[in-house]
């Protein structure tokens, strides 16, 4: 299997025009052969490694590249 980090980064970059934050499901879907709780370990490892960063509304958590996804970007005010 290709490096999961590359798979995730490629996906995020391909969407970077529309979105800066992603639900867990969006990322887990990149690894369809994996059980959800395995995918979780993998994606959380990317957070621990500093590749991804958590963003939380308080009730929902999303994932993005560190430092991106300021409110302005999400609202198209760049």
């Amino acid at each position: 299997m290709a490096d999961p980090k590359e798979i995730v980064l490629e996906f995020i970059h391909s969407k970077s025009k529309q979105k800066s934050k992603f639900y867990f499901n969006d990322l887990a879907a990149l690894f369809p052969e994996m059980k959800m709780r395995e995918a979780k370990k993998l994606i959380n490892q990317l957070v621990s490694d500093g590749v991804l960063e958590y963003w939380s509304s308080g009730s929902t958590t999303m994932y993005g590249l560190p430092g991106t996804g300021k409110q302005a970007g999400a609202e198209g005010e760049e």
Partner: protein
Amino acid sequence: MAKHATPLLDQLQSGPWPSFVSDIKEEAERRHKNEKNVEYQVPVDVCDDLLGILELSYKDGTTHWKHGGIVGVFGYGGGVIGRYCDQPQMFPGVAHFHTVRVAQPSGMYYTSEYLRQLCDLWEMRGSGLTNMHGATGDIVLLGTTTPQLEEIFYELTHNMNTDLGGSGSNLRTPAACLGESRCEWACYDAQELCHQMTNEYQDELHRPAFPYKFKFKFDGCPNGCVASIARSDMSFIGTWRDEIRIDQEAVAAYVGGEIQPNGGAHAGKDWGAFDIEKEVIDLCPTECMWMEDGKLKINDRECTRCMHCLNVMPRALRIGNDRGLSILVGAKAPILDGAQMGSLLVPFIKVEEPYDEIKEIIEGIWEWWMEEGKNRERLGELIKRQGLAKAIAAVGLTPVPQHVMEPRHNPYIFWKEEDVEGGWDRDIADYRKHHQR
């Protein structure tokens, strides 16, 4: 003289109820006086600016808080809720006003020393404002800045033996009633199970990967002191399989007025003599009680463990001896499709170390919800969308009558291939013997 004039908020102080405005003003004043010489790590006028920004919101009719943010402590994806205001020049004291969720002591047993530590911590590193045990059930510390987060986390974990709670799309801070520590109705050790499951599922608590929030709550019996049936995606409610234990002498003592009903809770007013027919038997929801030759009889097969009779006559009626718990799933607050109570998933399960059977149910549900749940879809909404039968199948149970809320709600039965003799394949030649083309 207050920093900001707050005529609209002041009006909230004029009602007959305690007012949060008065509380915040009091804390604002206390911070300015600083009689204890606290080395404040967040602006001294945080409470003044909080009142100021709220007043502005009342005036404008809109919030001045931004939604969410990237804050937390290293390695944790929950426990801290980032809050920033959108008028930081006007209200610098609340430019950052993050919330910290903290795991409450099990069964809410506080020591005064612990409470003092908590308050000291929050005066120094936060706004001093707290919100104890609201609907979430945990300790909510309101208002701090990003640089304080690791300090607070260190203090809590190293000096107070306390962890952060849950927030975001993860397992939220689990909660239990005080259970066997005090209560004779406890059908299992709710505090112990809550503790064990909290330790077992640390990863789910601190590293969010669910479609949305997920709550566990543990009630020792159907009285439901933590209201798990209404406010947790998965409720663990103590129950028993055998008979209510009846002490007929004590029944007679209640009837004769020697023992006060409800533990004397209604003694403040004269309600007249205790009437077992009117106050117990007629109120049994399943009508499964009666008196016979001066003795109380119960048809335990029909009893739904509503607890009413036990609550009224605790010295005469006791929970059975074959105890365990029921698991219900899908309760939630009103955001989508209205509020929902939990639905029964597992009628009875024993509570025995190392709790493997219970863990299997929990993990089966999570696998299903993580696989099938849409983003921001609560378990209860998924159950409504796909049907309880799917949830039952997800944990490997077979449907039983207790799963049926009412008959003829859904007239369709979908057979699975493995349930049909011979499967979907058939011998066409054999079929043609009896059916023409």
